[in-house]
């Protein structure tokens, strides 16, 4: 368990870390550690395989989750879940990419994986009252279901392949970003 912050500089992050440590003390069986966000940016490129679970604040999470998506091949295959106590929202990490409208190059994998997470969530939350258990299960199961297949090169091809084999491969490559180079609709 890694807490990513900037507590060496800003008061609010020192408070963030303090609360993290309090929470960690209630979970002594899990190894908890901290990392400054600048070091984490380096480590996520240098040795991303050495991490399991990390938690960070809103803006650092916004940035590092994009870095994470790049590590596995791009926005087009990165799903996400936003969990609350009463609601849950599932969404591909990519934005609307208006610059590739109609070109058939949109990657449906992230949306399909996000939908899979939602279905997993529904299944788990009906069996297990704990939302937490469901989130964990869905995050990992969705990942495990993914298998590579670079033969499906178009949106429709990938979608057809998925229909034929629901546990089949994702489409390679990341979702293109919008024309300005910025992502749309997924801040």
């Amino acid at each position, binding site marked *: *368990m890694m807490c990513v912050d900037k507590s060496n500089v800003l008061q609010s992050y020192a408070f963030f870390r303090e609360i993290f440590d309090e*929470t960690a003390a209630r979970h002594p069986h899990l190894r908890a550690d901290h990392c400054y966000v600048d070091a984490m940016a380096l480590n996520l490129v240098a040795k991303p395989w050495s991490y399991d679970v990390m938690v960070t604040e809103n803006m650092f999470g916004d940035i590092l989750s994009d870095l994470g998506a*790049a590590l596995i091949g791009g926005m087009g295959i990165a799903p996400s879940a*936003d969990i609350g106590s009463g609601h849950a929202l599932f969404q591909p990490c990519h934005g609307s990419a208006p610059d590739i409208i109609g070109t058939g190059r949109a990657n449906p994998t992230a949306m399909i994986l996000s939908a899979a997470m939602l279905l997993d969530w529904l299944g788990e939350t009906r069996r297990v009252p704990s939302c937490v258990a469901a989130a964990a299960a869905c995050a990992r199961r969705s990942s495990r279901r993914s298998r590579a297949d670079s033969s499906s090169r178009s949106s429709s091809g990938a979608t057809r392949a998925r229909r034929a084999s629901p546990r089949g491969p994702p489409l390679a490559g990341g979702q293109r970003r919008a024309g300005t180079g910025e992502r749309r609709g997924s801040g």
Partner: protein
Amino acid sequence: MRIVDIREGAVSLRSDISNAFISFAEMDASIVALVTDVVRDGRPAIGYGFHSNGRYAQRSILRERLIPSLLTAETEALLNDAHDNFDPGRMWAAMMRNEKPGGRGERSVAVGTLDMAIWDAVAKIEEQPLYRVLADRYGNGSAEESPFVYAAGGYYYPGKDLGALQEEMRSYLDLGYTVVKMKIGGASLSEDRARGEAVLHRRFAPRRDHERGHARRRILFGAMGLPHVRISDGREIAPQLDLRERLHLYAGVRSVKAIAGLPLPLADPRALEVDFVLVRESTERLFAERESGTMKPAGEARDSLVISRAACERPFDFTFALARVGGPAEDRAA
């Protein structure tokens, strides 16, 4: 040094607005001018005062009691010990002579109006801004360079719909205000609730979709947004951020797992072992204050950051539980 004259008058604040209790169709306010014989910068030092909207002018109390009390007081009794300025405390004592102590709302409005004029005159005689005078007298001499202010609005008026209310509040934010006040209590509870929601949701997220989202509880969300659709200050619309806040989606789960067979950016073979989950606290910090950013004309933009215990504990608890359920975190943590 003496008071030459104290003039009072009333100005009309007539408008079609109303709040929970009154219409402003006949609203007015008192104005006063406290004229001294002191000359500063070639002009007589005159203190001006007025009072807030919603109180009605207090002409009779001013004209019949407070002003005569000041004008008939011994000049000596109104000055400070050095005799180089008026003493607001002593002027208060003169003004309140033979006034029964205790709360009288109307009188306090009248006294407050004169009080403003007195302090204005005192600051002008000292040739200092009033905030500086107050900081020197009652503080440690240091004054806030940018005081907190808010925009008071959100009144009812005929034909004003939710869109007009949102526009009004938006215009205050565009002026640089970070806090606005709006009136409630003049309509039914459900109507006022809708007004409040509309203002809190002053951004562009379609309200009906939010309502549907509430009803459904599990939401699959696509992508939304066009590059050229922007808020006037250049920021993008962000319905997904609104949803996170509105539905209290406090934990953003980002699964990062390499998939065999896909081209990966890292050449190291261990890149295929990448498998972690990043949980992002999603309702606070910089983004929570994204409606409160200010831009000063001098070329300085400010955003503020917020971290609260309540907002941290939920995602932390969630993440620790996630690690517990998810596998042998003990073995793999860096």
